[in-house]
């Protein structure tokens, strides 16, 4: 079976796609992923509500990249209870722009319908790259490339936006600007976001809910009700707790899932 055939089969419409606010965009039940003998994901349950910003924290090898690839439709999820929207887009850690296509053509990649160039241009203007439409990707700085990758994801108006450690390779200042940009884009476009990261502070600053993954299982979930910008106070305690979880001495000390109201 070819790669493309597998890719087609992954999006399993487990339930009819009814536009219901309560209906989660992502729903995994008892999800298992094995590579040979190793179970990378073990009986995972995960819901993501429309418009929710979820940060997925985990150490290397915790299975977070595998989970993201599953949600992105890049990994085999057949015959499992998986619901993922067809309209989804990924921003990878390395921007993965095609070097042989000018920036706007990268953004327009695979777009169908009229006014492709206008839509790509609008998306690039939105991320502040209106002046680099005709540039070659290899001439962009790291931050610019990542913004172009964001534009490429958002131009598809996804109902699920997947971010795979998108700011890990950027310097601190650029990363901070990118945080603001991502929040602004999230507020105006309202996709559900799942951001994979290993940076606790980044997760606290951006997310509605933080999911800690360890050895293929969800170790803890934290919902953050405080508005963004007023999180400096609560971060200290939360940060300690999340860091100790990531330390992962024992899988037994599971923090109960606190059901707080969403902001």
């Amino acid at each position, binding site marked *: 079976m070819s*790669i493309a055939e597998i890719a087609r089969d992954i999006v399993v419409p487990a339930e009819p796609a009814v536009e219901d606010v309560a209906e989660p965009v992502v729903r995994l039940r008892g999800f298992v992923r094995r590579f040979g003998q190793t179970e990378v994901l073990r009986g995972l349950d995960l819901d993501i509500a429309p418009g929710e910003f979820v940060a997925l924290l985990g150490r290397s090898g915790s299975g977070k990249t595998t989970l993201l690839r599953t949600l992105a439709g890049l990994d085999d999820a057949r015959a499992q209870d998986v619901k993922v929207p067809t309209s989804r887009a990924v921003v990878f850690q390395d921007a993965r722009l095609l070097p042989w296509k000018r920036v706007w053509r990268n953004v327009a990649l695979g777009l169908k319908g009229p006014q492709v160039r206008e839509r790509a241009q609008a998306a690039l203007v939105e991320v502040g790259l209106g002046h680099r439409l005709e540039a070659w990707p*290899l001439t962009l700085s790291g931050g610019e490339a990542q913004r172009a990758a964001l534009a490429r994801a958002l131009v598809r108006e996804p109902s699920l936006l997947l971010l795979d450690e998108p700011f890990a390779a950027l310097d601190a200042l650029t990363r901070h600007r990118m945080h603001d940009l991502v929040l602004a884009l999230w507020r105006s476009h309202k996709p559900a976001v799942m951001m994979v990261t290993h940076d606790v502070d980044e997760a606290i600053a951006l997310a509605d809910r933080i999911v800690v993954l360890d050895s293929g299982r969800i170790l803890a979930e934290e919902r953050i009700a405080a508005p963004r910008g007023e999180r400096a106070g609560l971060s200290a305690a939360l940060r300690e707790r999340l860091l100790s979880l990531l330390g992962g001495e024992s899988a037994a000390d599971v923090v109960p899932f606190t059901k707080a109201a969403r902001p």
Partner: protein
Amino acid sequence: MSERTRRNGFAWGARWLSPIAFLLVWEAGSRTGIIPARTLAAPSTVLSTGLEMLWSGELPSNLLVSFWRIALGLGFGVTVGILLALAAGLSRKGEIALDPLMQIKRTIPTLALTPLFIVWFGIGETPKVALIAFACTFPVYLNLYSGIRSVDVRLLDAARSFGLSRAEQVWHVILPAALPSLLVGLRYALTISILVLVVAEQINASAGLGYLVNNARDFMRTDVIVVCLLVYAALGLAADWLVRAIEDRALAWRPNLVEQAA
């Protein structure tokens, strides 16, 4: 002008000294009779013979015949090489069916097939074009095939995540990524085609550069032979220039070219 560029300019000029000295010694040797004309014609004789052949139309008409053989041979060979590489590179079945055959073919020196091609195709134009085509297929196949197979999987993943179909992945990702390899193969093919042309034209040719050389050999016209050698060299240079021109256009996105333009 800085110190450095002046020194480089001097070095560049100095590089011409030894070839010019070589020509002068050769000319002197011919004039004094140390080098007999039947061994090697003097540079000045070669030049005048070359111009004569140019004006009389003897050189252009024969060059055109040779050029046509290369064009046809390359056209067939490169096309077949590309098609085979696409089939083997883009599908497992194609790889299993084609690659072993191509690897076997690689072990046979193309020129060793000349007698067989004469038996099959006679001594007309066909064996000449077929030899060139046959020789050109492999470098194109090998380079394009490995180019397709070494496409960055991360870029393919990205394309798949945006819902591109297999055909769109091939068109937007795989083929552009393999283009630099194809051009390397094309450069090899051009060089090889000229090499094979030289041998193929020894087969009972009645026109073409090889025919000129054979005739000149029979009449011990070393001046004509040297003129033809120079034309072969010029063909090689032109082929190289052609591929460079294609690369500059098709690979404008590459970092080194991008930097030069900036």
